[in-house]
C-alpha cells in the first residue's frame, strides 16, 4: 500500500518530464495520450488507496520516502500522510486533472507548444499531489510553491501577450507575499512545537500546556502563527485583499483555469487550514478574522461578477466568491463542511470552466459575453452541461452545490454568535448575488439572439472535449449525496466539530425550506427580469445606484493599490540605486577616498618642482634646521 502511494508522484513526474524533455521526439497526440494515461493510472491508484482508507476506520498511512534534511534535532523528511482528507483530496485532484488532460488534447490541439502545456500540467499535478499527501510543513511549502510556479508558467503560457506576462508576474508576486508570511508561520509553529512533522506537531500540541502560551500584544503566539499561515492561504485561495491575481490569471489557457484556478490549486489554502485544523482550534481570534475575510470575499467579489463581461472572468470572480464560502466555514472551525464545499465546487467549477472553454473555442477565442447569445441550439451539449454547472453553483435543490452551500449556511446559523450571524447574513446575500450573476451568464450567452455575426458557423466541438463535460456534469449532480461521508470526516487525529446533521431527507427538506431558497427565487426573478427579458428598471439608473455600480466596476481599486505599491517599490529601488548606492557609497566614500589621497599627493608633487636650486635649498634648509636643533641641545 505504501509503495503504491510512492508511484503516484513518480508517475506524474514521468509524465511531466517525458512530455517536456522529449518534446521533439513525440507527436502531439502521443504526448497527450501518454500523459493522460499516466494520470489515469495514478487516478486508479489513488482510488484504490482511497477505498482502502475508507474501508478501515481511521486508518492512516504514514511514512517517509526519504530524509530531506537531518541536522541534529532538526529533521525534515519527504513523505506522505494519507488519511481520509488527503485521500479524498488526492482523488479529486487526480480526477479533475485527468479530465482536463483529456479535454486539453482536444482544446490545445492547434497549439505550437502543446507538449510544453502537457509538461506543465503534469508538473502541476505532481506538485499538487506533493502538497496534498505531504506529512510535514516543509513538503507542504514545497508543493505550495511548486503549484504557484506552475501557475506562473501557465498564466504566461502565451508569452507573447503582454497582458499574459503581466498577469503571471502579478500572480507570482502576490503569491510570494503570502508565501513570505506562510514560511514565517511555519517557522513559528516549528519553534513552538519543535517539529515540522504533522504527527509530531499534533502530538506535541496535545501535550502542550496552553496556559503557558506567550501573549504578544494580547494575541496568543498560536493566534499569530495561524494568522501568518492564513495570509499564505489568503494569497493562494484569493481572499480579499490578495485576490487580485486570480481574475488576471484567466490569461492562461482555459483548461488551466479549470484545473488550477478553480478546482485545485486555489483550494490549497483551504486544504492547508483543514490540515492544520488542530492548531487553528486554538486560534480563536484568527478564526474570527478568517470568518470575516471569507464572508466579505464571498459577497463583495461576487458583486463584481455581475458587472463583468468576460466569460472567464465572471467564472473567476465566482470562484473567489465560492472560496469565500469555504474560508468562512473554516472561520467557524467547520473544516469538514468547508472541505465538502471544496469537493463539490471542484467538480462544478471545473465543469463551468470547461464549458466556457468549449464556448470560447466554438467562437474562435472570443470571450466577451456581449458578443454572444442564443447559443442554446448550436451548442446543445455544452448548454446543458453549463446549465447543470450553474444550477450547482446557485444551489438548486438536489444538485451538489445545494448540499454543500446549504450545509455551510446551516452550520453558520447554528454557530449562533454575533460574528457568525453577521457572516451568515453576508453569505446569504452572497447566495443571492451568486444566483444573479450565474443566471445572467447563462441568459446572456445561451438565450436571446446571437450578437457576434453568423450563427451558422458555430458547431459543437469533438467528443474529446465533450466527454469530460458530460462526466463532470454527472459528478456535479450526484456528488452532493456523499454528504454523510463529509459530515463524519475526521480531520486527521482530532475529533471533529459537532455538526448538526440528522440525515439526508431531513436535511433536504430543511434546505428547501431555508432562506437560501428564497434568495434563489428572488435571484432568478431578478436575473430573468434584467437579462432574459431585458427590461430596464428606472430604479437602476438612479444616481446613487449608478455611483455604486461604477465603484464596483473599478473592482474596489485593489489593483490600483497593488500597482502603486509596486511603483513605490520601483522608485525606492531607483533612488536607492542612484542616489545612495552610486552617489553616496560609491562616489563619495569609495572613490572619494582615493580622490583625497590624489589631492594630497598632488600637493607633494608641486613641492618637487624639478629645479635644482629648490632641492638644494630644501637640503640646506633642513640641514640648517637639524644642525640648529643639535646645537640648541648641546649649548
Amino acid at each position, binding site marked *: 500500500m505504501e509503495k503504491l502511494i510512492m508511484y503516484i508522484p513518480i508517475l506524474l513526474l514521468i509524465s511531466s518530464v517525458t512530455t517536456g524533455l522529449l518534446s521533439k521526439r513525440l507527436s502531439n497526440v502521443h504526448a497527450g495520450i501518454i500523459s493522460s494515461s499516466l494520470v489515469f493510472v495514478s487516478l486508479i491508484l489513488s482510488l484504490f488507496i482511497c477505498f482502502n482508507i475508507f474501508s478501515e476506520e481511521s486508518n492512516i498511512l504514514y511514512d517517509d520516502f526519504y530524509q530531506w*534534511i537531518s541536522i541534529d534535532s532538526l529533521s525534515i523528511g519527504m513523505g506522505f500522510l494519507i488519511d481520509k482528507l488527503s485521500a479524498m483530496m488526492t482523488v479529486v485532484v487526480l480526477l479533475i486533472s485527468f479530465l482536463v488532460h483529456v479535454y486539453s488534447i482536444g482544446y490545445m490541439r492547434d497549439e505550437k507548444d502543446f507538449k510544453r502545456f502537457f509538461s506543465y500540467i503534469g508538473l502541476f499535478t505532481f506538485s499538487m499531489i506533493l502538497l496534498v499527501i505531504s506529512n510535514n510543513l516543509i513538503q507542504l511549502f514545497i508543493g505550495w510553491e511548486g503549484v504557484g510556479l506552475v501557475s506562473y508558467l501557465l498564466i504566461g503560457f502565451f508569452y507573447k501577450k503582454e497582458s499574459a506576462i503581466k498577469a503571471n508576474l502579478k500572480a507570482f508576486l502576490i503569491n510570494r507575499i503570502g508565501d513570505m508570511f506562510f514560511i*514565517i508561520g511555519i517557522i513559528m509553529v516549528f519553534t513552538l512545537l519543535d517539529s515540522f512533522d504533522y504527527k509530531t506537531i499534533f502530538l506535541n500540541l496535545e501535550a502542550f500546556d496552553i496556559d503557558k502560551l506567550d501573549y504578544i500584544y494580547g494575541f496568543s503566539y498560536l493566534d499569530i502563527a495561524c494568522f501568518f499561515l492564513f495570509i499564505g492561504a489568503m494569497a493562494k485561495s484569493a481572499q480579499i485583499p490578495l485576490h487580485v491575481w486570480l481574475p488576471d490569471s484567466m490569461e492562461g489557457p482555459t483548461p488551466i483555469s479549470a484545473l488550477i484556478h478553480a478546482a485545485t490549486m486555489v483550494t490549497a489554502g483551504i486544504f492547508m487550514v483543514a490540515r492544520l485544523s488542530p492548531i487553528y482550534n486554538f486560534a480563536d481570534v484568527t478564526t474570527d478574522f478568517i470568518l470575516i475575510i471569507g464572508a466579505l470575499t464571498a459577497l463583495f467579489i461576487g458583486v463584481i461578477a455581475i458587472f463583468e463581461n468576460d466569460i472567464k472572468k465572471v467564472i473567476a470572480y465566482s470562484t473567489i466568491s465560492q472560496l469565500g464560502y469555504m474560508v468562512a466555514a473554516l472561520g467557524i472551525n467547520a473544516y469538514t463542511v468547508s472541505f465538502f464545499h471544496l469537493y463539490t465546487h471542484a467538480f462544478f467549477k471545473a465543469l463551468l470552466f470547461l464549458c466556457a472553454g468549449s464556448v470560447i473555442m466554438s467562437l474562435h477565442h472570443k470571450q466577451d459575453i456581449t458578443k454572444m447569445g442564443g447559443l442554446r441550439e448550436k451548442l446543445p451539449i455544452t448548454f446543458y452541461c453549463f446549465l447543470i454547472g450553474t444550477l450547482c453553483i446557485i444551489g438548486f435543490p438536489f444538485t451538489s452545490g445545494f448540499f454543500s452551500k446549504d450545509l455551510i449556511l446551516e452550520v453558520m446559523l447554528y454557530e449562533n454568535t454575533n460574528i457568525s450571524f453577521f457572516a451568515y447574513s453576508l453569505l446569504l446575500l452572497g447566495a443571492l448575488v451568486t444566483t444573479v450573476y450565474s443566471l445572467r451568464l447563462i441568459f446572456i450567452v445561451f438565450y436571446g439572439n446571437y450578437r457576434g455575426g453568423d450563427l451558422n458557423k458555430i458547431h459543437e466541438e469533438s467528443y474529446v472535449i465533450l466527454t469530460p463535460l458530460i462526466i463532470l456534469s454527472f459528478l456535479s449532480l450526484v456528488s452532493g449525496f456523499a454528504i454523510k461521508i463529509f459530515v463524519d470526516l475526521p480531520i486527521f487525529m482530532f475529533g471533529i466539530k459537532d455538526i448538526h446533521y440528522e440525515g439526508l431527507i431531513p436535511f433536504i427538506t430543511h434546505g428547501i425550506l431555508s432562506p437560501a431558497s428564497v434568495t434563489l427565487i428572488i435571484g432568478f426573478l431578478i436575473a430573468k427580469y434584467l437579462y432574459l427579458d431585458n427590461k430596464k428598471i428606472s430604479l437602476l439608473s438612479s444616481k446613487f445606484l449608478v455611483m455604486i455600480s461604477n465603484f464596483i466596476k473599478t473592482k474596489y481599486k485593489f489593483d490600483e493599490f497593488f500597482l502603486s505599491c509596486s511603483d513605490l517599490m520601483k522608485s525606492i529601488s531607483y533612488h536607492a540605486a542612484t542616489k545612495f548606492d552610486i552617489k553616496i557609497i560609491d562616489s563619495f566614500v569609495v572613490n572619494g577616498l582615493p580622490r583625497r589621497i590624489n589631492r594630497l599627493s598632488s600637493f607633494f608633487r608641486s613641492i618637487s618642482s624639478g629645479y635644482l636650486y629648490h632641492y638644494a635649498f630644501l637640503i640646506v634648509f633642513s640641514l640648517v634646521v637639524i644642525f640648529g636643533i643639535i646645537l640648541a641641545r648641546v649649548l
Partner: protein
Amino acid sequence: MINNILSLLIWLPIIAGLFILFYKKDDKILNIFNISINLIVFILSILLLNNYDQNSSNFQFVENIDWIPSLNIYYFLGVDAISVLLIFLNTIIFLLVSLYNSTLNLKKRNQYYSSFLLANGLTIGVFSALDAILFYIFFEALLIPMFLIIGIWGGVNRIYASIKFFVYTFLGSILLLIAFLYINSSISSFSVLSFYDTSFSIVEQEWLFIAMAIAFAIKIPMFPFHTWLPDAHVEAPTSGSVVLAAILLKVGAYGFIRYVLPVVPLGASSLDIFFIILSLIAIVYVGLVAITQDDMKKLIAYSSISHMGFVTLGFFLIFKLFDNTNTNSDIVVSLSGSMYQIISHGFVSAALFICVGSIYDRYKTKKISDLSGLLNQMPVYSWFFVFFALANCGLPGTSSFVGELLIILASFKTSFIYAFLASSTLIISAVYSLWLVKRVIYGELKAGLENSIDANFLEKTILFVLALIILILGIYPDYLMSYMNMTLQNITNNIIIKI
C-alpha cells in the same frame, strides 16, 4: 598519490597554467589541453570527495613540510568537509568555465587559459591551506589572475573596474596580514590549529575581529563594502564573472568560518549585532537596489550580494542563538544553512552569468531595455534562463531554498524582526528575478534581435549540468548536510568552548 592529493590539486593547474603561456599556436590543442587539465583536476577532486572520511572531524590529507621554520611558516595543507566541498565546487565550476571558454572567440587565448588555470590552483590552495601565511599568500595571489582577467579581457571600462577590484580587496588583506602577525607574535605559530587554541582578551579579540572581518567582508562583499562587485562584474568577461561570483566571493565566506569565528569568537560575539544588521541591510536594501538595474550583470551582481547577506547572517546569528538556547544544535543549523547557501549560490550565480554572457555574446548588449522576447528566438537558452532565475529567487526544489530556509529558521529563534526582514527576500528576489525574466525572455521579440542561434551542444551541456546540480541539491540536500555535519559540529565546539 592520495596522500599528496592536495599538493597535486594545487600545483597541477598552476604548473599547467605557466606552461601554457609558452604555447600559442593552435587554438584546438590549447582547448583540449585546457579542458583536459581541468578535467583531471576535477577527477582528483572527486577522489578527494570520496576518500574524505566524513565521520571524522579532524583535518585530513594533511601535508606538513618545513618552509621557513625560522618564521614559523610551514607548508601546511589539510582539509575538512567544508574545504572539500568548496574545492569540489571550485573544480566543477572551472571545468564548466573551461568548456564554455572553448566556445569563445578570444584574443591571447593561451594567456586567458593560463589565468584561469592559475586561479583554479590558487583557489584550491586557499581552501586547503592550514598555515595562515600560506593561506594569505594564496589569498593574495588569487587577485593576480582575476585582475588580469578583468583588466585585459574585460569591457570598455575594464581598467577602472580592475583597479577598483584590486585596491579594494588588497586594502582589506593588509589588515588580515596584520591580524595574523599579531596572533603569531603571541603564540609564535601560524598554524590554524594553534590559532584555535589561543585565548586572547576580549579587547584584543575585538580588534583582531575587526581587522580580519573587514578583509573578508570586502571579499564577500558585505553591505558598505560592496560597490566593487557590480563594477567588476559588469566589466569582467563572462567566464571571469562566473569565477568571481561562484568562487571568489566564497573565499571571503570561507575566511569567516575558518579564521574569524573560531579564532576570535568573543570579539565576534561582542560586535555581532553590527554584522547582523549589515547582513540584513544587504538582504533587503541591496535586493531593492537590484530591482531597477538596467544592466543584467549588475542586477545579478546585486542579487549575489543580497544572497551572500544570508551567508553572513547565518554566521553571525550563532552567538545570539547560543545566548538563547545554550546548545549547539541551533548553531549547527545556522552554519549549515550558510554553507549550503554558499555552495548553492556558487552554482546559481555561475549559471545566471553564463546565460547573460551568452546573450551578450550574441547581441553585444547586456541592457535589459535593449532586449525582449528572447524566448521566440532561442527557446533552449530562455528556458534555462527562466529556471535559473527561479532558482535565484529561492524556489523550493532548487538548492537556494534550503539555505534560506535554514537561515530564516535560525534567525527566527533569535528575533522575529530578523526573520521577517530575512524572509522579505522571498518577495524581493522574486521581484527582481522574475521582472528580469518578464522583460528579457517573455514578450514579443524586439526588432533587430533576429538571426541569432540557440545554444550549441556544449553550452546546452554546461547549462544542463548546472541545472541538474541545482535540482539535485534542492531535492536531496541531506547528502551535503550530513557530509558537513561532523565538521560543523567541530567548528561549533571550537567556538562554544571559548565563549
